């Protein structure tokens, strides 16, 4: 592959509603009416999901989790997009959307089983309209596309009934944009004019590979080649992410078809707790991005422009502490699965051969135990 310059600076075409300094700016295509309470609510979300992340990393260090994929730096992208969803919309995450899970009222503990090694997900995606985490890169974008096909067949798009019209939000990363599955999802949703929004968190890195390994042009432009709109948003700006995703989801619900959103953000932590960034990226890059912190700008805005109660920030801090405790104790309390449970749910009805493997296994385990 030929040489590339690795661009970390947002381009002019970036949608921004709140500057890194916390200045509210307007964008012609994305007007946003939002109350101070709501901004405060978003602040709360951002702080709390960052706290969940911090705790999970600590739990991994302590051996309580086998692995953790940190969302640090991507809180605004996830809360902005997550809060744009209606309860009956459906979200398809990768393995990093802990912030979106939060917006879907998924208890953080529900996410930990996969990383603790006590289950493979183990929840019902339909309970909170939030799919199982998907680790195989890109696969979930096709699931989202198929789900959207179902939505269309259920007559749940373009009816004008806000409680009926449904959109699907598919998350993926900059690296995933190279997978065949993701591009097939673009083909299908465009040709089928499906109610799906593709939300790409371009956090600049796919493990050790810079986004330039995947593409020499901004990723949001990919959509145009498939015949649907693409937009790049400041992924560290929760207001912009909210406004842009809301518009795209509305379009989807109104049978206007798919949109690709590229949230331009940064993976502040290593890829996962297993990764070592010193081998491939400069600390200075991380420093640059610290200046664009998604939380600091909202706090600056709230303190300067908005009238939140004096003790609001303390309350959020307090709430974060309580949440942290919930995550810590809850994680340790997660039940270990029973050995024989590996035979459950492989099939809806267990075939005889598996029954006998199970019986043998159960005898054996008890035998060894005794």
């Amino acid at each position, binding site marked *: 592959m030929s040489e590339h310059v690795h661009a970390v600076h947002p381009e002019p075409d970036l949608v921004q509603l709140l500057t890194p300094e916390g200045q509210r700016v307007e964008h012609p295509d994305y007007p946003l009416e939002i109350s101070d309470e709501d901004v405060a609510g978003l602040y709360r979300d951002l702080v709390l999901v960052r706290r969940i992340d911090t705790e999970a990393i600590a739990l991994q260090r302590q051996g309580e989790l086998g692995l953790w994929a940190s969302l640090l730096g991507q809180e605004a992208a996830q809360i902005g997009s997550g809060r744009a969803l209606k309860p009956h919309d459906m979200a398809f995450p990768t393995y990093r959307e802990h912030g979106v899970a939060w917006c879907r009222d998924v208890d953080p503990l529900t996410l930990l089983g996969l990383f603790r090694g006590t289950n493979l997900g183990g929840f019902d995606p339909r309970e909170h309209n939030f799919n199982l985490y998907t680790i195989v890169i890109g696969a979930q974008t096709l699931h989202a596309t*198929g789900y959207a096909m179902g939505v269309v067949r259920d007559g749940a798009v373009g009816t004008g009934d806000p409680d009926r019209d449904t959109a699907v939000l598919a998350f993926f990363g900059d690296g995933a944009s190279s997978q065949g599955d993701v591009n*097939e999802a673009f*083909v299908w949703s465009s040709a089928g004019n499906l109610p799906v929004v593709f939300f790409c968190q371009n956090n600049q890195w796919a493990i050790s590979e810079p986004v330039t390994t995947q593409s020499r042009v901004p990723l949001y432009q990919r959509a145009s080649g498939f015949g649907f709109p693409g937009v790049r948003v400041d992924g560290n700006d929760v207001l912009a992410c909210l406004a842009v995703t809301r518009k795209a989801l509305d379009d989807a619900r109104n049978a206007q078809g798919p949109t690709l959103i590229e949230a331009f953000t940064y993976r502040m932590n290593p890829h996962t707790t297993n990764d070592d960034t010193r081998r491939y990226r400069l600390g200075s890059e991380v420093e640059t991005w610290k200046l664009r912190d998604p939380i600091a700008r909202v706090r600056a805005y709230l303190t300067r422009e908005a009238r939140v109660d004096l003790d609001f920030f303390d309350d959020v801090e307090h709430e974060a502490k309580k949440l942290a405790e919930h995550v810590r104790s809850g994680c340790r309390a997660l039940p270990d699965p029973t050995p024989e449970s590996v035979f459950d749910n492989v099939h809806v009805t267990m075939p005889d051969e598996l029954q006998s493997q199970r019986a043998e296994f159960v005898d054996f385990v008890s035998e060894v135990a005794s």
Partner: protein
Amino acid sequence: MSTSMTMAKALNEGLRKAMEGDPKVVIMGEDVGKLGGVFRITDGLQKDFGEDRVIDTPLAESAIVGTAVGLAIRGYRPVCEIQFDGFVFPGFDQIVSQVAKFHNRSAGLVRMPITIRIPSGGGIGAVEHHSESVETYFAHTAGLKVVACANPSDAYWMIQEAIADDDPVIFIEPKRLYHAAKDEIEDAPTPIYQARVVRPGQHVTLAGYGPTMSTLLESATAAAEDGIEAEVIDLRSVSPLDIPTVLESVRRTSRLIVVHEAPQSFGVGAEIAARVTEHAFYSLEAPVLRVTGYDTVYPPSRLEHDWLPNLDRVLDAIDKIMEY
């Protein structure tokens, strides 16, 4: 409906019944609409059930299967058509890592009632990639069921049972039998995951499935002329395997020959041989023999009839096994 029909027609009627019976059943694949599929198995279904239920998809197998997963999560019961066996591989990841595992990953909370129809096997004089036998890849994959129909009646009933099954099913259709002789449709199905003794005999057991069954029956007839009574078993389900039915037979005949088109090594015959030998070790007078495709690339069509298991090769194996 006439009760005598070809396998192609039987599949078509079975699909129609399934669609009539459950509005959540959707058919999706390349050319399944107006064309009715390159083999006409879905002939007329789009006309009768509409473009929303019989979907001409873009040309992408991974997406055919991957979107089926999403449809299943939304409550649909997708029936995917893979145009030819050799083209299932671009969809392999979605089948093996998503379809097969989703129910388990969701702790049994989400079901994957997906049927993947694959016109399979050789013998039709096709070009490369159009005559593959892919069942073993899926049989080795936990979470999938793999069945193969060998006659019109089974085709009619098994496709309906596969679609009704809440587990994902790989449905192997022996394409060279699609338009072979018509046959009667039985009034009731034999349960899909049960093997069936299609010819009784006491000297040797011949077990196969799908495309090779006719060869097995001819072989049994020919062997009978030499006084060897071969019992013929149509396994019907490759995974799960109905080993008890095979064991019951082998305990009587003491000899077993397994036949399939897929290459021999690491094929279905190996699993049957291993399991039967383990469970009927003292009943066997001879090792389980295999008459299968060879460990080669599927040959150019001019050579496929030498390459495929055929009457002579099965009779040869019978002679061999009787000598033990």
